[in-house]
């Protein structure tokens, strides 16, 4: 028997979970269908960066919207998500890189965005005392920080369930079709029908979009991360480099997360990734040079999460250009975690109110397919 609900959300990453939660808050009864479990892939195993810094301009409004939610995340979820706000710092390693930073901040200021601030060598040293003496400055976004991704995604799922969402984990959504004004989706032995369908299936979303006649230029990638043993506290903000692939974060317990976007080989059908240790060695070497205190730390684990990366590096977000009641929310291209809370809120507004005050129009799928609706 088909169960009728108000909305069907496919994908239990932070985006699917956040949208499900915000739909519940708006009085809508959604079902969330996740083929593994909430946070199994990129949403649960990413670097946890809560970053407005260095974002593509089209997604900055969404990022700012999200930041406001992050700062009150405990009120929303009854879980602090281990969110900490010590800023994020982009380090310029030479004068050329600093010049690029200067131009970028000027551009943002011209557009009315003030969250990125140019800093000189002295302020950089104050924020990140351990950084090499030769770095001339950089950019800081002071409200940024980091959270625990698995804890956060789980908390969104849990709260959504408490507010009445139906959550199905361990069953893949299949046989997705639009009939008589309703979206029909099968999940294991059950089938659901709703006027609204949200495609938030991460690395699996591109196929869903293509099957529904809206193919987009997307690939599956698996950015790698490493975590070290505990070292004495030496750094508060999240640090990313302007010129080299590195992001760097020390947790309260002393462990240090090293990322930066080197890629593993994804085996999407098997939920598996094979790490590229020679690339990870490059990250290790960069840390070795910049932070001598880290040299004797042990690498405890390395991993990679499977996610979708768009050719233009910005997400597909908003209504379908082809089907009524279909919404896309995927392709966050290695920087979707911070956007999760805000994107869920905005998506619920689009679905329930038919519009939003947050500027997301540059993120729509109509950049690939002119709207036929």
């Amino acid at each position, binding site marked *: 028997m088909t169960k009728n609900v108000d909305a069907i959300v496919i994908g239990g990453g932070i985006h699917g979970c956040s949208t499900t939660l915000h739909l519940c808050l708006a009085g809508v009864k959604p079902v969330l269908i996740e083929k593994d*479990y909430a946070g*199994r892939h990129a949403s649960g195993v990413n670097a946890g960066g809560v970053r407005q810094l260095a974002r593509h301009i089209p997604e900055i409004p969404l990022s700012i919207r999200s930041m406001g939610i992050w700062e009150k995340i405990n009120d929303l979820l009854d879980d602090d998500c281990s969110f900490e706000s010590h800023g994020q710092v982009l380090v310029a390693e030479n004068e050329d890189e600093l010049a690029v930073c200067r131009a970028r901040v000027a551009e943002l200021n011209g557009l009315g965005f003030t969250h990125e601030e140019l800093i000189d060598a002295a302020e950089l040293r104050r924020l990140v005392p351990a950084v090499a003496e030769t770095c001339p400055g950089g950019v800081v976004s002071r409200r940024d920080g980091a959270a625990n991704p698995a804890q956060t995604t789980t908390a969104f799922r849990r709260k959504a369930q408490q507010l009445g969402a139906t959550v199905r984990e361990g069953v893949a959504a299949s046989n997705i079709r639009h009939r008589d004004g309703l979206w029909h989706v099968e999940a294991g032995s059950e089938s659901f029908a709703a006027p609204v369908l949200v495609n938030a299936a991460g690395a699996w979303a591109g196929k869903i979009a293509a099957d529904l006649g809206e193919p987009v230029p997307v690939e599956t990638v698996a950015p790698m991360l490493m975590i*070290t*043993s505990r070292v004495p506290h030496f750094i508060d903000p999240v640090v990313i480099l302007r010129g080299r692939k590195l992001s760097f974060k020390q947790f309260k317990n002393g462990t240090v997360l090293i990322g930066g976007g080197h890629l593993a080989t994804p085996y999407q059908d098997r939920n598996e990734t094979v790490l590229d*240790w020679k690339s990870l*060695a490059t990250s290790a070497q960069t840390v070795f040079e910049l932070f001598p205190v880290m040299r*004797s730390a*042990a*690498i405890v684990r390395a991993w990679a999460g499977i996610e979708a990366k768009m050719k233009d590096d910005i997400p597909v977000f908003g209504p379908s250009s082809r089907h009524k009641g279909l919404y896309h929310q995927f392709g966050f*291209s290695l920087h979707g975690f911070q956007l999760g809370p805000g994107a869920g809120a905005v998506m619920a507004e689009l679905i329930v109110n038919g519009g939003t005050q947050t500027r997301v129009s540059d993120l729509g799928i109509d950049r690939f397919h002119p709207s036929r609706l």
Partner: protein
Amino acid sequence: MSVAPKREDYDVVVIGAGPAGLAAAATSAEAGLSTLLLDENIGPGGQVFRAISSTPVTNRNQLGADYWIGADLVQSLRASSAEVIHRATVWSLDRNLDIAVSICGASAFVRAKRVILATGALERPFPIPGWTLPGVMTAGAAQTMLKSSALVPDGRTVIAGQGPLLWLLAAQILRLGGRIDRILDTTTRGNYFAALPHAFAFLSSPYFAKGLSMMREVKAKVQVVSGVTELAAFGDGQLANVSYVAGGKRETIPADLLLLHQGVVPNVNLAMAAGIEHRWDDLQLCWSPVLDGSGNSSVAGIAIAGDGAGIGGANAAIVRGRIAARAAVEALAPAAAAKLAPMATLRADLAKAERGRVFLDTLFRPAPQFRIPSGDTVVCRCEEVTAKDVLDSVAIGATGPNQLKAYRRTGMGPCQGRLCGLTVTELMAQARGKTPQEIGYYRLRAPVKPITLAELAAVPKSEDDVKAVVRG
């Protein structure tokens, strides 16, 4: 013996120089395949033949005749062309058969056409109240000290648990003049009846007579309490007392050292990190790799031999090593396989070596209260998570070991769940009324043993990576 691997590519790389690895490497090299044997210890032998070429123990009776079988295996390996590297810790293996190995603080990468994993067994966790106190250690750790340094306990010593290795260790300690005050046998009484139907096979196995005489030897010298149903260690920052219940009666005795042992389980860490499929073994109560008759795993090119393939003991391990190596030879150099023992003979040898195993597995199947802790008993030592913490997380939605990380950081510390994994799986299975197979296991990842950042930074990198400047 060399320091770094001589080549980047090998026909066969064998990981682990215990009975299975020694036999596999010798067989593969004898057939003319380029063979590299990587082993973590300072010399060959693994656990069962530990320090076989260097032990200070010279009286052969003290360690038992079985121990010295290892010397013959080492002999044939040394006569072969296999390249052998000790103190070599393999910290990554993937489905492309790329291997990362740390040797004396420097890492190298090698690639194999076939990999034979012979990483053996680990002691099963024994999470009783107080098991993390200083003064409580595993019997295996005590045996390591005994074999490599002839060190035996001289304080008030209690041995608790069950299984063939427990009796072997007790006998070895006594023969070397060590002290044992009491043995607390936790074998479940019902297991004797359950094991009975398998007793005939065991009676005709080589383990029977040896096991019986060893138990007799130990019982003549040490007070043995059987039917122990509860066990706890107490002390203020250091073990002071061991408390137990046997036959419904509680007793508390002072102790300086408590050695715990309730059998061994396959060491699955490297195999799981390589993506090899494992299944829950309901008899041996552990994860075992899914293998075909030649030891081939679900990942093409990787075979598993020895106790890592499912606990079978040293004699079975030797044969499994030969079978896996023969299969590799058949695949890579079919003509050379003719000079090796035929597969049919090897399989017959294996059946013989495995005879009686079901009896042992059934008899020494550990009782639930010694595998599945409760209350304040620590489960995850690295992050100090108790059984109650795990159950509380299950109550608010944690469904398996990987999900539990989001609640309690279990398995996220230095050991990465390699010590608490079985306990967490069984505890969550019990709490959720599911089978361990349904609950699953931690996703294990490389590095399987930690390496330093400096060591990783020093490995050779490709040109492209050095030049890459795009940040994702």
